[in-house]
């Protein structure tokens, strides 16, 4: 009897752990369900085409315009420019940490990157507002320092830690036999890094870059505070923009409950959610399909 009851307990606890482990999946489903139930009603007012490709976002005027194309372009351009800065910076830092730095230097620089990742986004946004914006305004003689370039710069420093730490893991896990073989054939350490180590860890580095961009496109406080807030398609990097998350965060408080504006903001949330979901699926696919399993994968 005793044995069977303890066995029962074992079995029972196994199920308990399993059910708790499915919480994350359940929450993700709930997020999807609630976004769609609150967001889809806007499609009764505007067509999906007019919503996504509409050029005007005037949610509070009468009649209201719900076109998020300028917001989408704002998000994409901010993410793209931040990627131009963060990808080389993040990957080069990762190479330095994984391949060049001595053990002691690494023990110092790695925590620095982690601390950079832990800075609250509102603080980085605040920093961009009070220090970077006036600096840009004076240096480049532009109308406002709160613009796309400023936001991209701040976002870049928020995605560098993601890119750097995942790339570093990938570089670090390249078998040393590969590097030794390359060195033994007469390649310099640099040639080994460029022709052997980086190609061998390319899937990890790609995952890192995609996740870093995903973080940049979803980041809210920075674009809310420093991007300038103008809902128009940018034509220069010093134009103010209003990315998707900024629009949601700035307007949700004053949108009447279950009014058109409220539904339109949830629908904007759906678009943002789909962007990051796609980024993550691609990253997941790459890391799953091309994962490094020893020398055999090369």
């Amino acid at each position, binding site marked *: 009897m005793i044995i069977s009851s303890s066995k029962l307990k074992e079995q029972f606890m196994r199920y308990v752990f399993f059910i*708790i482990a499915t919480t994350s*999946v359940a929450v993700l489903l709930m*997020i999807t369900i609630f976004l769609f139930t609150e967001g889809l009603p806007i499609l009764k007012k505007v067509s999906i085409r007019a919503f996504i490709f509409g050029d005007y976002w005037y949610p509070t005027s009468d009649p209201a315009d719900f076109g998020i194309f300028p917001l989408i372009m704002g998000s994409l351009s901010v993410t793209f420019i931040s990627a131009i800065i963060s990808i080389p910076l993040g990957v*080069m830092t990762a190479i330095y940490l994984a391949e060049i730095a001595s053990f002691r230097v690494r023990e110092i620089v790695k925590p620095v990157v982690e601390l950079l990742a832990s800075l*609250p986004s509102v*603080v980085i946004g605040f920093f961009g507002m009070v220090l970077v914006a006036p600096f840009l305004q004076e240096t480049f003689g532009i109308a406002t320092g709160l613009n796309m370039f400023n936001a991209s710069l701040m976002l870049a420093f928020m995605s560098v830690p993601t890119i750097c730490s995942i790339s570093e893991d990938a570089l670090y896990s390249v078998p040393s036999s590969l590097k030794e073989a390359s060195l033994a054939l007469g390649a310099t350490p640099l040639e080994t890094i460029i022709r052997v180590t980086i190609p061998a860890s390319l899937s990890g580095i790609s995952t890192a870059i995609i996740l870093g961009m995903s973080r940049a496109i*979803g980041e809210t406080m920075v674009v809310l505070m420093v991007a300038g807030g103008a809902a128009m398609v940018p034509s220069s990097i010093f134009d103010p923009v209003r990315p998707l998350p900024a629009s949601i965060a700035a307007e949700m408080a004053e949108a009447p409950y279950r009014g058109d504006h409220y539904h339109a903001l949830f629908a904007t*949330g759906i678009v943002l959610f789909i962007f990051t979901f796609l980024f993550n699926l691609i990253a997941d696919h790459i890391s799953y399909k091309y994962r490094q399993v020893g020398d055999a994968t090369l």
Partner: protein
Amino acid sequence: MKRKITQQTFFLLFRFAAFINAAALAIIIYFMLANGWKAISWEFLTKPPMDSMTKGGILPCIIGTLCLALGSIVIAFPIGVASAIYLNEYAAKGRALRIIRLGINNLAGVPSVVFGLFGLAFFVIYLKMGVSILAGALTLAVMSLPVIIGSTEEALKAVPDTYREASLGLGATKLQTIMRVVLPAAMPGILTGGILGISRAAGETAPIMFTAAVYFSPNLPTSIFDEIMALPYHIYVLATAGAEIETTRPLQYGTALVLIGLVLGMNIIAIIMRARLRRKMRQ
């Protein structure tokens, strides 16, 4: 010779990239310290805001942020640790595991403002919690779940299999092995993850904007159904809203410095704890 110069140049470039990160961190921290230092006083830390938030302190914000961060960890920690135990100790390779992993990875990538929307629609409106500490803590808990699962799993992986085998070999059941051998051995690593979870929850703004935080609340919270002020939201409000943006600058710097101190302090503790652990593991 040319190869050597190329190499030197590139290595210098890589080193410079690493240096830029360190410089960025140093500049941000120095800037906040230099400007915020003057604003911080005993009064600033222990008084509520006064004169429509142009004077006074930030006590309600500090208390609000502590409530939210602790509340979220109380909810997320047990769920995260149990999830990680399933993933690392029980789960067999297969479709269920793949789906759960995909769920966790995608949850980690959900933008913070989308968590805010979800918290508003589900906790605040659907479950009728209203704008409250409870709704905010739940939203933050959901958001920090992947952080806790990730670091707990790492801690569990670091426990050598010989521990498990020895315990099972002595006749302990799997559950006993997990509870009495694996978890105690992994506990410092798991706690490190908990600290990182708290610090993430304390610094977030977007998830609490619609679910917990208000511009101003004259009273300290008395129940979990009260709305509250919070440090990150207070910084945002002071820096962007109202006619007094320039006059409240010192308050903004001061609040930002307190928030940075709180968050970086917890992170530094976590980093030191982990460094010690790794050294111990190596021996």
